[in-house]
């Protein structure tokens, strides 16, 4: 076995994992704070990226103007979602909320394409997606400099959000909300406001993910599919854990690449589609709440 190649696969996988984690964070954020499994996260990633690019391509704004404007749009979207969708559905079963987010996903997808059209766009960030020459020369290992930057952004995002949840009063309140909407209301947690803020933050996370994925793959409808890559990460890491998203992402990224490269050829390849899910599933058999997820309390 070629060791150098092995490391390339490993590192490439880890860095792809970081990209998955970036999307997973958005899920965790919402789930941890409201118990809602937000299926619309993928659509939000698409919407955010498309809005940003659309402003650049159609209005000729510079990226420096488009990004802040998109942030504003995402905040408005977050607030609107709370008002229109979540508020009337307080205290409803999880599955209902889940379903509502699917409806939301359709709406956002339609809206994005209605406003910005169906054509695909390129998004160019100041950092190019080419192998880092430094690492190439030094270690003869091929790693994209873009991916390294993405990893940095992701780490930053996770750290700050994890701190938010564990250290602040709002973080505590958010976890309370996830446990019991009704009781959270009863102790005076302003559910509405918190949710609006939260969805706005999720919108920002979606924007970051959308920009990075968009720069990586182009801004197009397929961005909504990156959510599918985030799901095994989520179940492996635990729906409720920020660090879980990162660790899960790294594990999934690395193992799926390994599997595709080393096992794939034996079985006809293309196993990346299901392998992460099966891996996550096997893992769940050992720990039903994922790596870092909160234990599901079953007590009578």
């Amino acid at each position, binding site marked *: 076995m070629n060791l150098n190649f092995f490391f390339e696969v490993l590192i490439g996988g880890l860095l792809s994992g970081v990209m998955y984690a970036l999307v997973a964070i958005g899920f965790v954020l919402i789930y941890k704070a409201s118990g809602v499994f937000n299926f619309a996260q993928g659509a939000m990633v698409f919407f955010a990226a498309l809005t940003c690019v659309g402003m650049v391509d159609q209005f000729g704004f510079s990226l420096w103007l488009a990004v802040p404007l998109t942030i504003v749009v995402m905040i408005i979207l977050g607030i609107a979602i709370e008002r229109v969708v979540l508020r009337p559905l*307080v*205290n409803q079963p999880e599955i209902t909320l889940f379903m509502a987010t699917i409806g939301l996903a359709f709406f956002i997808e339609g809206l994005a394409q209605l406003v910005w059209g169906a054509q695909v766009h390129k998004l160019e960030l100041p950092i190019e997606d080419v192998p880092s020459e430094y690492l190439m020369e030094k270690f003869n290992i091929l790693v994209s400099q873009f991916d390294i930057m993405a990893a940095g952004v992701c780490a930053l995002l996770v750290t700050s959000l994890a701190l938010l949840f564990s250290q602040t*009063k709002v973080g*505590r*309140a958010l*976890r*309370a909300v*996830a*446990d*019991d*909407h*009704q*009781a*959270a*209301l*009863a*102790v*005076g*947690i*302003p*559910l*509405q*406001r918190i949710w609006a803020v939260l969805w706005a933050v999720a919108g920002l996370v979606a924007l970051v993910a959308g920009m990075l994925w968009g720069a990586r793959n182009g801004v197009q409808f397929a961005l909504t599919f990156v959510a599918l890559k985030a799901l095994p990460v989520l179940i492996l890491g635990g729906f409720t854990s920020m660090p879980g998203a990162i660790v899960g992402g790294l594990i999934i990224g690395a193992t799926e690449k390994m599997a595709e490269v080393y096992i794939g050829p034996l079985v006809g390849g293309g196993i990346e589609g299901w392998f992460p899910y099966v891996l996550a599933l096997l893992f769940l058999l050992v720990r039903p709440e994922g790596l870092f997820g*909160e*234990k599901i*309390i079953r*007590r009578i």
Partner: protein
Amino acid sequence: MNHAANTANAAATAAAAAPYLSVNNVEVIYDHVILVLKGVSLQVPQGKIVALLGANGAGKSTTLKTISTLLRGERGDVTKGEVQFKGERIDQLTPNELVKRGLSQVMEGRHCFGHLSIEENLLTGAYTRNASRAELKESLEKVYHYFPRLRERRTSQAGYTSGGEQQMCAIGRALMAKPSMILLDEPSMGIAPQIVEEIFGIVKDLNSKENVSFLLAEQNTSIALRYADFGYILENGRVVMEGAAAELSANEDVKEFYLGVSGAGRKSFRDMKFYRRRKRWLA
């Protein structure tokens, strides 16, 4: 029974004083079809303890939820009537605004945040207060002082604590908001008798020392009437009887149906040879 005389007096003056909390002719429907409250009116004067009594399903919890506007989350609608607190109409407010105005509810069935530790549960109770660390610590201490058992379990996840511990946690959590009025739904349920006395002692303490008013829905009529100033009896979504606590405890029907004592004094549970059918005040 000298405090009975006091309460009778108090009730008389209360009628004159503007009510702190008043519920006027409220009608509530669940799921668009189930009519549960059929025009309930009641008042809580400032600094008083009012008991809301009644059999299972009479609508006590619904009344409390109507006041705290938690009904919305349960697909219940207030179709008639209004609720006032400190002279302000509150039926359109959010629970958060109510807690800020000093009105807190302890829900029936505990509703602790299962994944949070006991202490975190208590801290969420102070969410609306913007209190400093020191103030929070002080409030926590106070709760722990009232419920020493909670101190022992402070780091346990609430979901794993015993039923009684959860109940204490729920009450403690409401206290953390420093409310001026508390809606208490069945505080005694599942609590050891000693602690029940303690809880009511705490209620009385808060009431007399910190002038907190209480509206408590309770099945344990005897203890409720012992500590309350005033009482309402609900049947089938209507108030069928109201009066000073002492008057109620003295009423023959209340005695028989809610206190379990009839003419001959308290009967052993073993000797109840007949299934009882409730007499209705209203057919």
